[in-house]
């Protein structure tokens, strides 16, 4: 609706040199500042090449620009009165097999912490629009996490670095190469001594190969690895326990009794998707036999795993440490000095120990990846004692390249710099100045290195301190490769030519290795000749490009034996401890400029646009703290001021700090958000900061949370059924007998679309929310608007607590449109803008909507979203190209809501019609359903009794939300299942509102 008009505005804006003033929301205010900069003009010119001589299209990668051109011209023409005379720009040479209007899919991969998550990327005439999981891939199995979903937005991020700079002046990549080549020659003279590389975790075979090449030329090159949220301690623990570095993979699909000690296998991270799938597979398998796998969690701060646990016990890090020792002791592992432990924990440990012993080989004890390596090693030993090692906890060769340097890598680098051993430093896709422990003063040290290069996607803190900065291309922009958590190797193929002119890391490394001319494509192929050793290369390569990964390249499993390790001494609980965690939305800060992730309500706090210090309700009472109150945290000399948030289930005297915020001025989206927790970390206190001093700063700040209330206030919104009842064939609610209604009955001759959401399987990971946002062009509104309660997410995940605030049960409930059979909204709309469709869809027609908002007022689920402002027109022009062209862009003053991804239904229907058949079951997959790691969402035609959704609705766990209103929603829920013998126990008890 608004597309061309928007572009027109943008171009007018360009002409006058500024975006027209839609101020008021910080999110865009800074964008307007940006617009005043000449750099922004260039960027707009990139976006609309029509304004400069078009270079012509040689491949699909050029089409992005042509697209821009056609839109842009539409805009220019539209300056006169009335609708613009739209132009049509055909190809000059049409790319083969390209059908304008039909999406194409390319197998590639998204990266998180160096690990690849294979995806299929959907492109429309050359513009990447959406990614889906790769169904064939053993790790993805069709699902992705929220970060992969959001990756496509980064591609168009106007804040990404767009130019090679030397001393903050625009330079060229060639100039850089020349400089680097010169430097390399010099280094060659002294066999590369003084040269240091700093990278994040690396799984890319090509990167590895190129570094090896460089090493052949410069043997004394030193390579340091710094991953802010990595596996260093896990590897260290493996070294202690098994004498060598290994990756350890929990096999939740085999475990019957699991104990997580600060471990969060279902939480965000590279392994979330496979772990979640394994967990749900096992849970469903057991459920079929009338049992449930047991999952105990000892955690200092609520985690997604804890939310799904049979029992989650909040405990201070020190207590968890001691509990682990107690457990080991109980299992008869020698050499452990008796730890002190509060009575309830001691009893609980005993109970858990017995349960673990009983299940023997099917037992699994998982240590948190950031726990003290010694303790983790002890836990491996415990697994061996129980018999689960190599079964429920499997070791493989490490997937990461050069893991041996570990967590001390950065301190080692610092040391080397201090002693003057480093005079040339290449920082590749790492931001130590922001992410390094505070005590290293890495910033000051860096500046003592004469030749410093930063290769990164952003002009970030590190770039600011490096004479040379080279913009790093997005994974979807250049040829590369990587390995998934299981080691399976994927080729990462580009979908579009660098939007912001970024370069591949390989090009830099190749230059260092003396091959400045090498093309990324050739480099990757060269590597893969090795990876695909022993196969006929060309066909094998094509196969890999098609599949997105190479069969049988998973890391080799190792049968291991944990040797006795010296157990760490018990800890003395009591002091206030702070645990450090990556942020569930922006991870270690690398997604700070991603508007989708910033506005994504975090699983427990439902906060957007900020990070907080999580405190327990008891702690809040004790210190008279309320949500949003600012406190001064000090550990030693280091101080930070941050807002607190009261979090049920938080260990009483433990604070939780989340990384990734406090960047200061960082682009249009990421500026001035939250506080910087990195400032409080030191090399020896990276994950737990002991003796933290908290002082209330009698000031507070507004925090934008999308859900103010905790409890269900006695309503049965989330339901639960005991496994016993389930086995006995009882159902959670009496099977739906339709109450009488005054409204006419619909008859559906064709299809009856419906959805079920399995609350037992939902882990609240938020992937569906981001997927929906990407698929349906859901606008981002900014913190101020969220504060007003105007977030636009079509699909939200409600979070409720029951039980005690100190140890609550957490319930996640995704809420899309319910597509009621007897929809109140349809009755309310005076202009027929929302009507009942012949397939039972509750249709919302934006272009008919006049915005009376009656439908939304009438909606009991409040799933309708209103464009209070012209949100879409306020979005930066670069994001316009990202939009899914298959559905309307909504303008100011219209209502919108979940449509069951009607664009996908229409596409399927048209295809089916052409082939003269019905739409097959599973042919229409909604965005939320497709992305879900636990397959919690099922969609389909409920009029077909064999369809997956019909079968799901036949389940005794199936119930309708607010069924008493007799609206007969098409979306229904499958109740949670608990070990409890009967009824809604876990749902009883109200968590006090704070």
């Amino acid at each position, binding site marked *: 609706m608004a597309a061309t008009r928007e572009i027109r505005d943008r171009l007018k804006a360009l002409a006058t040199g500024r975006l027209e003033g839609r101020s008021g929301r910080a999110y865009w205010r800074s964008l307007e500042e940006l617009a005043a900069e000449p750099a922004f003009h260039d960027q707009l010119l990139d976006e609309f090449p029509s304004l400069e001589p078009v270079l012509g299209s040689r491949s699909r990668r050029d089409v992005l620009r042509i697209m821009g051109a056609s839109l842009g011209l539409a805009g220019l023409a539209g300056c006169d009165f009335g609708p613009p005379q739209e132009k049509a720009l055909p190809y000059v040479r049409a790319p083969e097999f390209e059908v304008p209007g039909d999406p194409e899919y390319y197998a590639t991969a998204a990266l998180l912490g160096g690990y690849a998550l294979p995806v299929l990327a959907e492109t429309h005439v050359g513009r990447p629009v959406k990614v889906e999981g790769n169904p064939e891939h053993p790790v993805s199995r069709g699902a992705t996490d929220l970060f992969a979903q959001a990756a496509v937005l980064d591609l168009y991020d106007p804040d990404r670095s767009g130019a090679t700079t030397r001393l903050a002046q625009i330079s060229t990549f060639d100039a850089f190469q020349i400089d680097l080549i010169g430097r390399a020659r010099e280094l060659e003279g002294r066999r590369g001594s003084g040269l240091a590389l700093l990278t994040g975790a690396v799984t890319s075979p090509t990167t590895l190969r190129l570094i090896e090449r460089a090493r052949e030329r410069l043997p004394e090159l030193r390579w340091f690895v710094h991953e802010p949220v990595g596996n260093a301690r896990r590897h260290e623990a493996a070294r202690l326990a098994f004498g060598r570095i290994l990756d350890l993979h929990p096999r939740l699909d085999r475990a019957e009794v699991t104990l997580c000690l600060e471990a969060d296998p279902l939480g965000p991270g590279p392994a979330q998707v496979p772990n979640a799938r394994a967990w749900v597979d096992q849970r469903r398998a057991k459920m079929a036999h009338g049992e449930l796998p047991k999952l105990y969690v000892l955690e200092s701060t609520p985690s997604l795993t804890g939310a799904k646990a049979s029992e989650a016990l909040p405990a201070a890090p020190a207590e968890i440490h001691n509990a682990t020792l107690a457990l080991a002791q109980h299992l008869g592992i020698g050499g452990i000095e008796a730890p002190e432990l509060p009575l309830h924990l001691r009893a609980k440990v005993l109970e858990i120990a017995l349960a673990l012993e009983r299940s023997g080989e099917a037992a699994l004890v998982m240590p948190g990846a950031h726990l003290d390596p010694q303790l983790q090693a002890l836990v491996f030993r415990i697994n061996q004692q129980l018999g689960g090692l190599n079964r429920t906890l499997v070791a493989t060769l490490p997937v990461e390249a050069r893991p041996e340097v570990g967590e001390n890598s950065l301190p080692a680098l610092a040391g080397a710099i201090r002693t003057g051993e480093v005079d040339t430093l290449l920082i590749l896709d790492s931001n130590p100045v922001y992410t390094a422990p505070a005590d290293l003063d890495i910033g000051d040290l860096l500046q003592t290195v004469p030749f410093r290069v930063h290769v990164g996607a952003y002009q970030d803190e590190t770039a600011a301190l490096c004479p040379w900065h080279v913009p790093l291309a997005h994974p979807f922009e250049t040829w590369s490769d990587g390995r998934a958590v299981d080691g399976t190797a994927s080729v990462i193929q580009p979908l579009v030519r660098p939007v912001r002119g970024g370069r591949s890391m390989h090009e830099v490394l190749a230059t260092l290795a003396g091959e400045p001319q090498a093309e990324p494509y050739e480099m990757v192929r060269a590597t893969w000749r090795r990876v695909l050793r022993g196969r006929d290369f060309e066909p094998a390569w094509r196969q890999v490009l098609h599949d997105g990964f190479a069969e049988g390249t998973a890391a080799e499993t190792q049968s291991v034996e944990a040797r006795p390790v010296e157990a760490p001494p018990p800890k003395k609980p009591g002091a206030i401890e702070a645990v450090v965690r990556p942020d569930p939305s922006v991870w270690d800060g690398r997604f700070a400029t991603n508007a989708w992730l910033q506005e994504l309500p975090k699983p427990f706090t439902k906060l957007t646009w900020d990070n907080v210090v999580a405190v327990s309700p008891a702690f809040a009472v004790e210190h008279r703290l309320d949500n949003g109150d600012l406190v001064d945290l000090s550990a030693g000399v280091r101080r930070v001021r941050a807002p607190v948030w009261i979090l049920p289930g938080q260990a009483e005297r433990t604070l939780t700090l989340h990384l990734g915020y406090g960047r200061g001025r960082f682009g249009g989206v990421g500026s001035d958000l939250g506080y910087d927790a990195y400032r409080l970390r030191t090399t020896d206190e990276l994950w737990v900061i002991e003796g933290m001093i908290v002082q209330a700063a009698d000031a507070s700040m507004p925090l934008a949370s999308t859900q103010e209330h905790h409890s269900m206030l006695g309503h049965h919104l989330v339901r639960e059924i005991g496994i016993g009842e389930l086995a006995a064939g009882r159902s959670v609610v009496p099977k739906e007998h339709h109450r009488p209604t005054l409204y006419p009955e619909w008859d559906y001759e064709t299809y009856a679309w419906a959805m079920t959401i399995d609350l037992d399987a939902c882990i609240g990971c938020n992937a569906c929310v981001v997927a929906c946002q990407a698929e349906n062009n859901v606008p981002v509104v900014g913190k101020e608007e969220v504060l007003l*309660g105007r977030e636009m997410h079509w699909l939200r995940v409600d979070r409720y607590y029951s039980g005690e605030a100190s140890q609550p049960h957490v319930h996640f409930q995704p809420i899309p449109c319910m597509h009621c059979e007897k929809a109140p909204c349809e009755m309310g709309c005076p202009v027929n803008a929302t009507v009942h469709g012949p397939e039972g869809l509750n249709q919302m027609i934006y272009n008919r909507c006049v915005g009376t908002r009656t439908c939304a007022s009438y909606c009991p689920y409040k799933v309708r979203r209103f464009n209070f402002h012209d949100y879409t027109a306020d979005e930066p022009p670069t994001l316009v190209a990202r939009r899914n062209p298959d559905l309307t862009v909504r303008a100011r*003053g219209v209502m919108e809501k979940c449509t069951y991804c009607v664009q996908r239904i229409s596409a399927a229907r048209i295809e089916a019609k052409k082939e003269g058949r019905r739409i097959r079951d599973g042919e229409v997959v909604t965005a939320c359903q497709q992305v879900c790691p636990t397959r919690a969402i099922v969609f389909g035609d409920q009029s077909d009794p064999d369809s997956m959704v019909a079968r799901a609705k036949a389940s005794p766990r199936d119930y309708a939300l607010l069924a008493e209103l007799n609206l007969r929603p098409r979306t229904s829920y499958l109740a949670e299942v608990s070990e409890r013998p009967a009824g809604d126990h876990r749902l009883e008890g109200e968590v006090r509102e704070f």
Partner: protein
Amino acid sequence: MATVHPESLTAPSVDYRSVTRDVAAVPLAFPSPRAWWIGFGISCVGVLIFLVSAFWLFYRGVGIWGINNPDFWGLAISNYVWWIGMGHAGTLISALLLLINKGWRNSLNRFAEAMTVFAVIQAGMYPILHLGRPWLFYWLIPYPNTMTVWPQFKSPLEWDVFAVGTYLIVSVLFWYVGLIPDLAGVRDRAKRRVWQVFFGLLALGWRNSAIHWQRWQVCYWILAGLALPLVISVHSGVAMLFAGGLEPGWHTTIYPPYFVLGAVFEGFAVVLLISITLRHAFRLHHLVTDRHLDMLAKLLLAFGLMTAYGYLFEGFGAWYSGDLYERQTLQDRLSGDYAWAYWGAIALNFVVLQACWFRAVRRSAAALLAIGAAVTVGMWLERFMLVTTALYRDFLPSSYQAYVPTFWEWSLFLGTIGVFFFLFFLFVRLLPMISMFEIKEVLQEEARGGHRAAPS
């Protein structure tokens, strides 16, 4: 047929000549210019505020208001209901009392009707102003279009469009037809040419002939007959806009009568305010007597008590239904974030009202002025409370969200009040604000009833 009453409706001094003189004097030789000019000036400022608020609203969209998800309506709709409510007493007084021949109305009906018309105009503007895309408001009107799409006739909002539209037209006609004989009267007394032409045109060539009177009578009574059911239907329609939804606190069958009664109640309060002010400003104590006030006060009391019954029954219904959500909303109204609105409404509407049991109060202009003002505010609080408390906490606790009106919502409200007074000031300045001929009818009746000497 005549109302024979121990006490005359107008002061003894009043006769045909004096009535015409006093009333016609107002437009022709304006007696109290200073006060009028001040009032008019202030109302002009109000109009300005309205124009600014409306312009900014159209330019930036409803986002400038405090409305959000779930509070999609807020002030715009509660003000709409408040204004339309005010527009009820006028028609009710004139039409109903005309049809049942209650002569005492004749001193009040004229400006009561004016009030109705002006209030309905304000009410009519709100639904358009609150639209997300106001420039498409005409889609609410059924007309043959190139989309072959029609309005959705099941929607209460759609019916509001018709109801309010019809009501506005009928009230304007009723008011104007009632004016014609007096316009002629003023025309004939006008000395200056401009006034003669002005009133001459408006009087549509009324010549006081018997046939004129006879046709006029028929027409006027028909309009009265039309207007009366509309009073009921309009506000019932408005009530259905809420009762039609499932929201707890809205979804109840008592809403239509509850709303109509409340509206009339509010209307009478405003009539009180106006009549007292006018008679004071233009020294019309002999035409609008204490007895009129007494009548009005009794009506106010009656409708107030009926409205109070509505309150009680709404509460009882919520409790008796046993519906968790209904009870929750009831409790929330009594003790929630907006309890001030609920208790404010109770206090200003019903507590203060009880004073009307006393004759002394009913005959004290000052006291009634205070009570009228209290009820006017009280009813506004009630409308605000009804709209907001239902929405800000409905079914899923996850979507609970408070609502705080912004400056622009208040300024627009202030603006509409300004427009209302602007029109009203013009009315008292330009038109005979009291029905001369109908008062003469009363004199006639009373003469015939022997309560006074036959007027000369």
